[in-house]
């Protein structure tokens, strides 16, 4: 491991990147380093550690936005927002324990760079829907800004979208303007017991199609429901389909009744109080079921909800796996049971062109040798390479993190 730069200002970062360009020295860009296991291993001798760029610079609750430096801890952001009854509506997950790093260390910049969103994504959108503007230093060593501090803005390209999910391959973030929203006053979760994968994913997807404003929709098969720390879920003795309702208490009560009526023929039901509900969705969000044991590859698969159970069934004919469903079935979390089997072909074949799969947890050697992200068709691959080069023509920033040669 070579040198680590720890800049504390934007102009320091400009200097570092320009130096890297001049020396043709690629650099590994990190915040808290909790997501280094995501993506392909970066081959770079030097590290650009942005952790000194931390802190909330501006927070205006009535304007529904905040400006923070990228290495600000998410936990700090969430505490600050909670004090004003607000939240990051995309419900950023904490994959620390899943990836073998400590919990609650993740940064805002990391969530944005990896475009990570939790269960509320089905209702409120992804991380990318909440980034209003950004200041960055590109791989050309130039400080530029995109977007702004207001929600409605079509002034120039929406480059913020490109930044989200670019895994630090385009630019180094120096300041982020994010949208914040009121947090619900309360929440509860309606559980439906005993459905198989096909019926469970159908039930949670259909619940999203009712006017009951469901803000989380997950299906946990029996073998994973029993691992929950929430007793009602763990002791269900079978699968549990979970529907979160939040908002003002009178409205929640009304919607619970409506949903119960709609789903009364499906199976036994139970209701979680607010604390249990929060605990359950934290587990769903953070993929706690696969954090321990820490072996076995973990995949994150995005497909249309009505294809999800079929995709999992096909994978299971070839590889021993466990899987559960979030995002009304649109997100599959899947873990291979054997430590040395990562299931690449089985997963890719089952998904086909119905969606995409990302290898979230695997040994560095596996992530180096196999595509971590969905392989792209030639025209899109060529476009991806040109976009990368438009920001970072010398491939200085996190080269190869997403795709070989990008």
């Amino acid at each position, binding site marked *: 491991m070579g*040198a680590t730069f720890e800049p504390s200002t934007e102009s320091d970062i400009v200097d570092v990147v320009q130096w890297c360009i001049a020396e043709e020295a690629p650099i590994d860009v990190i915040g808290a380093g909790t997501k280094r296991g995501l993506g392909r291993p970066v081959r770079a001798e030097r590290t650009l550690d942005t952790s000194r760029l931390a802190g909330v610079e501006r927070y205006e609750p009535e304007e529904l936005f905040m400006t923070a430096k990228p290495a600000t801890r998410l936990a700090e952001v969430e505490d600050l927002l909670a004090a004003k009854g607000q939240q990051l509506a995309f419900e950023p997950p904490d994959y620390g324990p899943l990836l073998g790093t400590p919990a609650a260390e993740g940064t805002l910049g990391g969530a944005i760079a990896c475009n990570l969103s939790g269960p509320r*994504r089905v209702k409120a959108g992804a991380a990318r*829907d909440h980034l209003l503007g950004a200041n960055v230093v590109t791989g050309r060593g130039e400080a530029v800004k995109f977007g702004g501090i207001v929600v409605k803005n079509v002034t120039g390209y929406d480059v913020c979208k490109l930044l989200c*999910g670019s895994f630090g391959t385009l630019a180094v973030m120096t300041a982020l303007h994010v949208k914040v929203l009121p947090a619900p006053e309360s929440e509860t979760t309606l559980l439906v017991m005993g459905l198989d994968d096909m019926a469970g994913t*159908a039930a949670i997807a259909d619940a999203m199609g009712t006017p009951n404003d469901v803000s989380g929709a997950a299906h946990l098969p029996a073998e994973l429901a029993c691992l929950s720390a929430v007793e009602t879920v763990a002791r269900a003795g079978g699968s549990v389909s979970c529907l979160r309702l939040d908002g003002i208490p009178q409205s929640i009560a009304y919607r619970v009744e409506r949903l119960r009526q709609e789903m009364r023929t499906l199976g036994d039901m139970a209701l979680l109080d607010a604390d249990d509900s929060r605990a359950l969705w934290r587990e769903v969000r953070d993929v706690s079921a696969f954090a321990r044991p820490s072996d076995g590859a973990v995949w994150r698969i995005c497909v249309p909800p*009505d294809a999800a159970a079929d995709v999992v069934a096909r994978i299971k004919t070839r590889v021993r796996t466990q899987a559960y469903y979030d995002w009304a079935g649109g997100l599959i979390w899947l873990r291979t049971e054997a430590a040395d089997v990562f299931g690449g072909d089985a997963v890719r074949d089952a998904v086909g062109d119905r969606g995409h799969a*990302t290898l979230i947890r695997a040994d560095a050697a596996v992530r180096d040798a196999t595509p971590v*992200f969905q392989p792209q068709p030639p025209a899109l691959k060529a476009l991806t390479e040109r976009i990368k080069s438009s920001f970072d*023509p010398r491939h200085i920033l996190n080269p190869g993190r997403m795709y070989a040669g990008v």
Partner: protein
Amino acid sequence: MKMPEPDVAILGKRADIIDALRGIVPGEGVISSDEELRAYESDGLSAYRQVPLVVALPSTTNEVSRILRYCHEHGIKVVPRGAGTGLSGGAMPIADAVLLGLGKFNRILDVNYRNRTARVQPGVTNLAISTAVRDDGFYYAPDPSSQIACTIGGNVAENSGGVHCLKYGLTTNNILGLEVVLINGDVVRVGGEYLDTDGYDVLGLMTGSEGLLGVITEVTVRILRAPETAAAVLVGFPTNEDAGRCVAAVIGAGIIPAGMEMMDRPAIHAADDFVHAGYPRDVEALLIVELDGPPVEVSLLIERVHAIAEAHNAVSTRISDSEEERLRFWSGRKAAFPAVGRISPDYYVMDGTIPRKELAHVLGRMREMSEEYGLQVANVFHAGDGNLHPLILYDANVPGELERAEAFGGAILKLCVDVGGVLSGEHGIGLEKRDLMDVQFTETDLNQQQRIKCAFDADSLLNPGKVFPRLHRCAEMGRMHIHRGQVPFPDLPRF
């Protein structure tokens, strides 16, 4: 507004180009007669006009791909166009460019209620999507005022909003997938019937890119279940300051209404005279706040909003007690533009966004500027998200008034940027605000945006002359100054 000089060589090859296009698009899909071309000479920004070189109206992705490949090979510019309702001149033709109309892409291909998606062609109107799924209780959320006529392809190109985007988001938050044809004829699909695209978010980048990056040939939208009920409260205030503070207080109380719209006195009077919406006339500002959801939630929140309004000096409040009354509250707001059209020979619609707290200050400055420029202004305002639509009244037949209206508009937008806002909230930069981009961005900012353009369209053939104040050659943009040996520190950890 200056456009690049037409390429004489291209103009000279017009007949060949028409022949080639006829070889790709059969029958009446190529329009070349002067008379018929006139119909395409402007979009919704009718102050600017230009007859296109030729119009092509393909009906398949394959035809679009072949047209673009032909134009790419021959260095011919292309301007994509949906319904031509845009207000910033984004679809204004260029003298030496093929105008590519997507109007024949008018089919809804697939609706999937379990996945809550609809796959549609770009020429389908915004309203047609909601209409197609209405009987099953669903709708498509973004609702720009032009929704009867504007197309979903145009909505994607402009990232259109509407009065409900405060709660339900803009186009970019409500689409899941695109099929895009690049200028070299390559067809790429980004996203689909699932959440989160993989790789770089080209779906997000394409949205709001104003026809400069590619031609959209299919859109997958997210559809939503319609809320059970909706109600609106109409509140009159003695000052704009009171109304502005009320808006902030509603949001500060943790309420995100389905819509929160404001009108100033001139707009209130024009609208009420036109549609007799029953607006209070002796107030300086009018707020329409709409809540939707389950009945119990709506009535509770309406009461909370009502109480907040009373605490902010509201002089008149009315809560809709029926669906008809709710729609009547909206009728004046929705007819505000034509209503202003009745009291002035011409009007110029502006579209800046400001932080909400600057509202009173900006409206106050606008009144002063109105006197400086000698032109009246009426304001309608998406108050919930800070998006202003000042309507500048002028008469194009009075020499100099159009120029004065444009200068006034430019001054308003600069004011928006000065207070922390942006040049355009939902209408796009297009041709109209192209030369103001320097107010918001540095040369370095704009150069990076243009390099993204180069990644899609290295010869700058797609909709050139729009959005960016200066055209640069991509080779020149790509150059990098390398400071080998000059960077002020050695290979050591620093800072």
